[in-house]
């Protein structure tokens, strides 16, 4: 009797515990590099809608600034405190995938109801899949666009990049010309590299688009492309713009597009959220074409789940939720989608609150034609090896060809 009672009591406690377990609130930690209010509001809305199917799951978004993002993420992983989910940039993807720290989301996504994994564009998934395995779902396949300050173009009496593009005259030569004219007529800088970091943390963003416009590449199939004639020509032009025309914000100088100090910069549409408060008229246009025609460059970022996270199954379910059709459409105002159905929908070009449809059409166009930035398993080492050689390039008296030969000599053993 006594024993039976004990068993009964124990089983009651156990079954109560089993029943109450799913009721316990769970939290998923999600690292992102945006701190923008509009972005976070949207992300929190998506997290809120996850509660329909998972009432007790909250998702906490943790902002880590982009410049240190990959390092800080690594510290958290190495310190045994991995986030459950995170954004990941294209240049970090191969390193992390090769290290085996990313969870294969393939099974979860293919089984998720109404998910339609085949809707994702294959080229966009290239960096994130390996056979059947899916290590990340791109949430942003965002081409680099020219942001221009219409007010400054008007002041200088120039056609703006969008108008030039419409008449088929928007190429590397007119790009150089308008930048020079802006500098001469308004005293402001013609062009600023992405976020003003083209000489430091954004070397690739600075050099890659012109090199591709000239038909070159930075590296391909283990071979360095910086010393090829197309790349040399492209970089020579940038070099002239910095040191002869003095129309690009030079190294060591601060010229902020968003506060009106530069007439043009290159960035992605997620940054358009900064524009309404900029205090000048603005627009976006495609990258100038070059001798190789149009060659848009795409920066990509994906959502990943960390293999060592304790709630990785739940985290994978959240990825399936966050990247379903409805939510991808929602995110598309900031982060261009890799889902064909959303990309081709009217909603993508016409529903953006900040950017007019005619400009969004250029974004869709660029996504279709563009190539993703280069990445490599040894990206951090390659960039560090390049950095001092690229420093040598950005001097008034530098021999561009020689400097680029130096870049290749430094990175070739790593490719």
């Amino acid at each position, binding site marked *: 009797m006594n024993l039976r009672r004990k068993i009964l009591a124990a089983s009651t406690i156990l079954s109560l515990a089993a029943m109450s377990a799913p009721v316990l609130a769970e939290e998923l930690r999600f690292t992102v590099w945006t701190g923008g209010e509009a972005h976070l509001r949207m992300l929190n809305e998506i997290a809120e809608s996850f509660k329909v199917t998972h009432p007790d799951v909250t998702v906490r978004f943790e902002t880590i600034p982009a410049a240190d993002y990959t390092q800080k993420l690594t510290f958290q992983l190495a310190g045994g405190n991995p986030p459950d989910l995170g954004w990941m940039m294209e240049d970090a993807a191969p390193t992390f995938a090769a290290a085996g720290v990313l969870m294969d989301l393939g099974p979860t996504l293919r089984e998720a109801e109404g998910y339609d994994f085949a809707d994702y564009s294959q080229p966009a998934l290239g960096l994130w899949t390996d056979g059947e395995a899916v290590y990340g779902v791109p949430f942003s396949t965002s081409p680099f666009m020219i942001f221009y300050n219409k007010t400054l173009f008007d002041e200088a009496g120039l056609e703006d990049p969008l108008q030039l593009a419409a008449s088929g005259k928007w190429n590397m030569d007119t790009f150089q010309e308008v930048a020079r004219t802006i500098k001469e007529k308004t005293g402001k800088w013609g062009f600023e590299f992405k976020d003003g970091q083209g000489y430091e943390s954004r070397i690739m963003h600075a050099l890659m688009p012109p090199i591709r416009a000239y038909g070159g590449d930075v590296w391909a199939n283990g071979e360095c492309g910086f010393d090829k004639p197309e790349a040399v020509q492209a970089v020579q032009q940038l070099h002239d713009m910095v040191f002869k025309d003095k129309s690009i914000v030079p190294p060591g100088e601060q010229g902020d597009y968003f506060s009106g100090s530069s007439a043009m910069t290159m960035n992605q549409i997620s940054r358009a959220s900064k524009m309404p408060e900029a205090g000048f008229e603005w627009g976006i246009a495609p990258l100038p074409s070059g001798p190789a025609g149009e060659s848009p460059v795409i920066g990509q970022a994906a959502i990943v789940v960390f293999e060592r996270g304790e709630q990785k199954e739940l985290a994978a379910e959240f990825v399936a939720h966050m990247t379903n059709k409805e939510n991808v459409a929602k995110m598309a105002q900031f982060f261009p989608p890799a889902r064909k159905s959303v990309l081709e929908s009217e909603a993508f070009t016409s529903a953006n609150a900040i950017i007019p449809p005619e400009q969004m059409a250029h974004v869709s166009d660029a996504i279709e034609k563009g190539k993703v930035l280069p990445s490599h398993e040894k990206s951090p080492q390659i960039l560090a090896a390049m950095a001092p050689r690229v420093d040598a390039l*950005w001097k008034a008296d530098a021999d561009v060809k020689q400097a680029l030969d130096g870049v290749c000599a430094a990175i070739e053993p790593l490719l």
Partner: protein
Amino acid sequence: MADTLTDKTSARTWRAPRLTLRRREAIEAWLFVSPTVAGFLLFFLGPLVAVVYFSLTEWNLLTQEATFVGVKNYVDALSQNPDFWHVLRNSFVFAIGLVPLNMSLALTLALALSRPFRGVVFFRTVFFAPVVTSAVAWAIVWRFLLQGEGGAVNQLLAIVGIGGPNWLREPDWAMVAVIVTRVIKMVGLNMILYIAALQAIPRDYEAAARLEGASNWQIFRMVIWPLLAPTTLVIFVITMIGSFKVFDHIYLMTGGGPENGTLVLAFYIYEQGFKFFNVGYASALAMIMFVIVLVLTVIQMTLRRKDMR
């Protein structure tokens, strides 16, 4: 026995002699220092021993794979890697530039500000304020001031007809710039130490020397400077160690560039460990840095001891 246990007062008087005063004090002292000792063991000695072990492994931070490789990392650093010697040279240049500049400036300021006069507190505050300023804010402001063309420093130089360089973009000038901005940031601390030492010197010594007809320079050279020797030693050691360990300033001002011109050892260790994830190699470099600083400190202390004799 039973009696003593039942009678509390006698129990106390019976127990007390077991601990001598000396012993009791020792136990109390250990209890007082135990939190610090625990912290020292846990957060200092533990990691230090761990670093020694890590330095003998090849450990990838990201994959968490570690293999024991013996002294390979040390051999690689000292004989295989040309960057290492370049980085070491930069560290020495930084220290050799920073330490004398910092110390001489600190002493000069201390001599000027050790005696009370109207506004002395204001000036002391002005020179000490950078020490407590955020390193990030400091670096951002200086990056603006040191811009090539639009920078305030070069505009000031232009007034007197000097065309300033693009400070943070030319390797040699960048080194000068990080040294000088670091000195301005940290000099206040050494100044305070010197002021304290100067104020501890009895005024009678100076008065006596003056009666003997000594000039200001002689008083400084023969009376004050020798009395400052212990302070000078301390300041030298902490400033030198600090200059070898400099990281945040480099990270924020130049990121080791341009052309690796300001890539110093501590920053290089960070790059190896946290950018390339080679924790084993980074640990070996950290041990090398530890030995360098240790040797320099010992040399300095031995010289000073001889000097005092």
